[in-house]
């Protein structure tokens, strides 16, 4: 299953809610304001680094670029994809759950 999360982890509980229910090895894609979760150097980066070891975590590149984070350091283990990559993930992972 592919899980999508779209809100900043500083503001909402959706990323946490997703991490609590995703099964090991599941794919998680961070989109929109959730891309801040992928950044190194924040107070949440350690939790994300640990999550990236249990799950296949990726982040949407255009959302990083829009927010001035195209060249920002990301936590280890996170892959950047574009909208085509988002489509590929959705196609590859069987089904999709949006955490809203």
């Amino acid at each position: 299953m592919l899980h999508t999360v779209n809100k900043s982890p500083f503001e909402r509980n959706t990323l946490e809610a997703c991490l609590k229910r995703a099964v090991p090895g599941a794919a998680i894609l961070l989109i929109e304001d959730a891309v801040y979760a992928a950044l190194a150097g924040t107070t949440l980066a350690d939790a994300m680094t640990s999550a990236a070891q249990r799950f296949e975590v990726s982040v949407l590149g255009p959302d990083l670029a829009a927010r001035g984070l195209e060249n920002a350091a990301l936590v280890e283990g996170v892959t950047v994809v574009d909208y085509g990559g988002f489509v590929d993930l959705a196609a590859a992972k069987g089904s999709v759950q949006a955490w809203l």
Partner: protein
Amino acid sequence: MKFAILVNEGPFNHQAVDTAYQFARAALARGHEVLRVFFYYDGVHNAHRHSAPQADERNIVARWSKLAEEHGVDLAVCVAAGLRRGVTEAVIAPGFRITGLGQLIEAGIDADRTMVFGD
């Protein structure tokens, strides 16, 4: 592969709408089919033909209409959610149609993947 897309929010206020649109475009570009985009909750506001953003802004409503025109994507607006919010036949843009919520479930059955974009 066939995709169904559910849009929960209105345009401008939430990027969810933009992501849904970019996803649909990318899916079509990959050679997939987008069976239906279903607009529910405040998502019904995507259909307003009076929407007139500034010249240097993206025109979200017109962009959906163009997607329907170019790729035959079915833009389905929930009648009950629309009625509450003033989105009726009188105000919808080209390419949109007002229909029942059952069409969302049908799309979920017919599509290989159902995507949800919201707040």
